[in-house]
């Protein structure tokens, strides 16, 4: 199914409903295999739902090259449960497969992979810091192909500590790769604690700008209206000689009260009781897998 200009059909209210189901999927998936990363997954759920159900043109009949489609890359591969849920709910593969997450012989690997040929995934990620380079390369391939669709990539804020991110930032500006929209999940948390304590990022906006990027701040990265508005603005700024970045202020664990506002749920799975508590807060809108 070609999903194009769905903004005309998918309302913000509908997007919110989808996001609620995606959050249910996430907590159920990590609970089922007692591992995985709910925190960042929940935090970025609204952004990914907005992309896949409204802002991106993409085809669920997956092809690796994605010619004339918008592409998405997940650089912070540990939030794979979110991506898998969104891909399946968008129609890339049956939602029933979500129950195999992180289990032996599954296509839904702990971190996104191409080896098992899961539709929707174009490159392995999980080792942090590599996705922006790949996205910029794919964006240049689009230019060479005279394909004017866009390339989206999502990174973590802790991930910004990897030097390769800055190599890619410098390169993209130098080569005027203005068909890429890179978002940073600016949740202020990483494994060992708040980013400010672990390794401060400083003024990320000023850093990106000084590297030649156009930066948009999305102060409410868990509010669908604000996300879609930011994405439309970002799209309107492409093709003007500068790569676009979105600093997406999210809350880790958003939607599940006891997971919010701490790094504790970066990579921990809920137990039975915690799962029930989480699900009680998330409306089942599309039917659990």
């Amino acid at each position, binding site marked *: 199914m070609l999903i194009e200009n769905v903004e005309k059909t998918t309302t913000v209210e509908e997007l919110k409903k989808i996001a609620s189901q995606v959050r249910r999927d996430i907590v159920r998936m990590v609970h089922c*295999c007692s*591992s*995985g990363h709910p925190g960042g997954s929940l935090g970025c759920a609204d952004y990914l739902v907005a992309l896949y159900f409204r802002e991106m043109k993409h085809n669920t009949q997956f092809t690796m090259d994605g010619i004339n489609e918008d592409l998405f890359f997940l650089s912070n*591969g540990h939030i794979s449960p979110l991506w898998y849920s969104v891909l399946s709910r968008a129609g890339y593969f049956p939602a029933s497969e979500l129950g195999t997450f*992180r*289990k*032996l*012989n*599954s296509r*839904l*690997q*702990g*971190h996104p*992979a191409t*080896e*098992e040929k899961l539709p929707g995934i174009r490159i*392995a*990620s*999980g*080792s*942090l*810091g590599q996705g922006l380079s790949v996205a910029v390369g794919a964006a240049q391939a689009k230019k060479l192909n005279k394909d004017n669709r866009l390339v989206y990539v999502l990174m973590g804020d*802790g*991930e910004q*500590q*990897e*030097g390769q991110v800055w190599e890619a930032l410098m390169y993209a500006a130098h080569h005027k790769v203005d068909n890429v929209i890179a978002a940073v999940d600016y949740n202020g948390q*990483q*494994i*060992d604690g708040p980013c400010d304590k*672990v*390794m401060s990022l400083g003024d990320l906006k000023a850093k990106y700008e000084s590297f030649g990027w156009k930066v948009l701040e999305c102060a409410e990265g868990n509010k669908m209206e604000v996300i879609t508005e930011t994405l439309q603005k970002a799209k309107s700024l492409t093709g003007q000689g500068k790569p676009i970045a979105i600093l997406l202020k999210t809350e880790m664990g958003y939607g599940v009260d006891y997971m919010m506002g701490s790094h504790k749920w970066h990579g921990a799975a809920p137990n039975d009781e915690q799962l029930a508590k989480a699900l009680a807060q998330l409306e089942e809108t599309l039917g659990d897998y």
Partner: protein
Amino acid sequence: MKKFTFEEKIDTRSGFGVGLVEAGRLNSNVVALCADLIGSLKMGDFIKEFPDRFFQVGIAEANMIGLAAGLTIGGKIPYTGTFANFSTGRVFDQIRQSVSYSEKNVKICASHAGLTLGEDGATHQILEDIGMMKMLPHMVVINPCDFNQTKAATIAIANHYGPVYLRFGRPAVPNFTPKDQKFEIGKALLLNEGADVSIFATGHMVWEAIKAGEILEQKGIDAEIINIHTIKPLDTAAILKSVQKTKCAVSAEEHQVSGGLGESIAQVLSRNYPLPLEIVAVNDSFGESGTPDQLMEKYGLTANDIVKAAMKVVERKAAMKTLSV
């Protein structure tokens, strides 16, 4: 077959954590660095006791290796901590140039090595690290088998001047070697004397080799079991001594068949004393998500796989005898 017992199962990375504190107490030049994985590497106790001698570098492994190399200039003994993949593959050239070629006294301490990291999957399950590290001149490569031995190794490497790669794992495994053992780099440990086949194992596979020895005994095969905790420098003398008696060998490691312990042993044998060898290792494939036990089974790294390999080399040995008659 000698009896081996253990009181508890505990992860080797905890042995590293405890050993690091001890190394810090014994030598005030010992410092530690970590790339946003303090909990996973069990570095918390060291940080508590020596806050000024710990450096959090964030998610920046290449920088960490360079910093460690720099810290040695001035006499510090840096221990870097992150997962095995990010300790080696990600930073190979930084290690090669700034640590190994420059002969710096850096201890690269790597957790979550191999398949037993489990559910995180192939992106994190490095199976090529021993190969990469052993290829580097000056580098010492150690893969201890349990908590006690990892602790001992962590303490011992502070007293060895030069680059060291110390590899350990995530899951709880039998802790069966002696408490407070002395760790001698490069010295293979004879666990069980036997006459029919030599089994050389490293890391988590040492316990599997012991279990294999018990199964083999029931089949009437008397296995000699040797713990090769140091892959480089390899204890060539111990290996040759054993195979001169048994005339066939099996190696076992949680690593890719290329570049691992088995390949090192093959080199020793073909150069000195060619005879049948089977290598129990991952056969040129990436890993995947699953529980540690499921993965070890699927990728052929269990006691049973060692048993099969041992029976095969014993057969090959017999066939060779017939041939030469």
